[in-house]
């Protein structure tokens, strides 16, 4: 916490975060926030504190993929804590192929106007101009997502330069810390989107947990070497080891299709859940959405989980994860 690079009007007492989460002051890059002093008072927008703070407000909630205003309204009514606006859900991107890009701003704006909950939108990995456009529309969060076709095969977006916060996918600890280093204020597992198969999300959540438990037992000398091995910034690794968790909010994503899947990811330590194709590709979206919302709140109560899992109609058809599967392995995208 010594290296406080927060903005001029920055922490009075240290920005913080979940109890377990650290002061974020040391994560934020300099020259990020915009001070806007006016007569008689000053405020600071776009700080890492308000970016990671919104993610903290989403905890214990479900973020649902929607492709139009009508679906967004159904998601809001079902208790979604946010919606992700996109043109095609991952299962359709997988089936239809082609280059998947940012959604039409008109569609995103219609969704923003339709609901009161936060609206997220996806941009391609490395496509900072899509991010500039989506920020200008007024979305509340940007997902720099492997579900869309990457625009840059070596670089991710420098997320510190944006006022809007970013969430990024990760398959392991090094990848998660690289994204945080670039300015991500929230992390999610990648899972394998559009499959309705939770196995990859479980793999990624367990990989991060195992690596953190390992790091937490290490001496400083060992942490320097681990940082090199997993290609993560040392100071973020050190902070993660101290906290025994990622220093930002961490959600599950990719393949969650049932209330039980959602509760599984919560019991594995995730702070909340993204559900993509799993809701609007199922037999009764409104009912399934509500059941998953309840499952995330009551994830430790099998009796409630049994009640909400009852009679939900058909789940989306799941796919076996296979390198030759239609659409390929999306989780491999990202560097």
């Amino acid at each position: 916490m010594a290296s406080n690079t927060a903005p001029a009007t920055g922490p009075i007492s240290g920005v913080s975060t979940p109890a377990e989460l650290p002061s974020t002051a040391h994560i934020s890059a300099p020259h990020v926030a915009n001070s806007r002093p006016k007569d008689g008072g000053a405020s600071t927008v776009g700080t890492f504190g308000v970016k990671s703070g919104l993610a903290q407000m989403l905890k214990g909630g479900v973020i649902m993929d929607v492709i139009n205003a009508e679906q967004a309204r159904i998601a809001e009514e079902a208790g979604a804590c946010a919606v992700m606006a996109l043109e095609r859900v991952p299962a359709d991107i997988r089936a239809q192929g082609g280059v998947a890009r940012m959604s039409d701003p008109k569609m995103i704006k219609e969704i923003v106007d339709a609901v009161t909950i936060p609206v997220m939108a996806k941009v391609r990995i490395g496509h900072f101009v899509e991010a500039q456009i989506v920020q200008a529309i007024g979305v509340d969060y940007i997902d720099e997502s492997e579900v869309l076709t990457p625009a840059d095969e070596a670089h991710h977006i420098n997320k510190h330069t944006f006022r809007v916060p970013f969430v990024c996918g990760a398959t392991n600890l090094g990848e998660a810390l690289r994204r945080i280093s670039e300015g991500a204020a929230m992390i999610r597992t990648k899972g394998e989107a559009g499959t309705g198969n939770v196995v990859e999300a479980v793999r990624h959540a367990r990989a991060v947990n195992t690596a953190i438990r390992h790091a937490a037992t290490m001496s400083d000398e060992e942490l320097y070497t681990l940082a090199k091995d997993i290609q993560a910034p040392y100071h973020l690794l050190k902070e993660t080891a101290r906290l025994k968790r990622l220093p930002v909010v961490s959600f599950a994503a990719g393949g969650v299709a049932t209330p039980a899947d959602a509760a599984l990811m919560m019991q594995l330590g995730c702070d909340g859940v993204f559900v993509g194709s799993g809701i609007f590709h199922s037999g009764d979206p409104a009912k399934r959405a509500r059941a998953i919302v309840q499952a995330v709140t009551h994830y430790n109560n099998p009796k409630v989980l049994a009640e909400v899992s009852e009679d939900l109609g058909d789940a989306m058809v799941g796919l076996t994860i296979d390198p030759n599967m239609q659409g390929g392995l999306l989780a491999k995208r990202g560097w």
Partner: protein
Amino acid sequence: MLKGATVVGVLALQGAFAEHFAILSRLASSKNIQPLLVRTPSDLAQCKALIIPGGESTTIALLARLAGLLEPLRAFVTEKPVWGTCAGAILLAESVEGAKKGGQELLGGVDIKVGRNGWGPQVESFEAALVVNGLKDSATPFKGVFIRAPVVLSITPSASRPPIKIIAQLPSSLVPIHSEPPEGVDSSNEPDPRTIVALRQGQHLVTTFHPELTKDDRFHEYFLRACVLGSE
């Protein structure tokens, strides 16, 4: 559990309840309180006071109804101290503007009307230093973290409840630029309600910002001292 400790609940349906719980836990021994995460009516029945955290107010209200907590919460608010932060402030308001289509379920209990997302989308979320009367060491500003925060649109006093007491205000230059001044406000002799970011009505406390996102536990200390343990 401490002997004779006062049980203070944190509504744990969705949102930033862990942060409130952690701060209460730090204050537990000095204040002789016992924090409790509340997810069911039987949890709530054990509490002498409650904090409703930030989160999404529509989600929290729906989960409360599905858990059979909505009516017990409404009854709780009429009898016992409750503090709402952000989404919690919306739920404690008597009415809300900018709610989702079809309206939004509220608990009520505090005579204010609020507007959702008063400052606009997330890019307008901000931090500002607040001077707060009544806090320990009140000369030191409190860091107000405002995230898609609601704005107080008007005070709607009712005869049956104690008067509203303003605890903290933003400078008038920081009120939402796109909102119209509320009707009937004469800025010359009464404060623009939109500048109010913390207020008390009897044993209830409302903050439109997030003290739980700081490491500063003075607001929690204030709630326990002034509203719950009743020394003021």
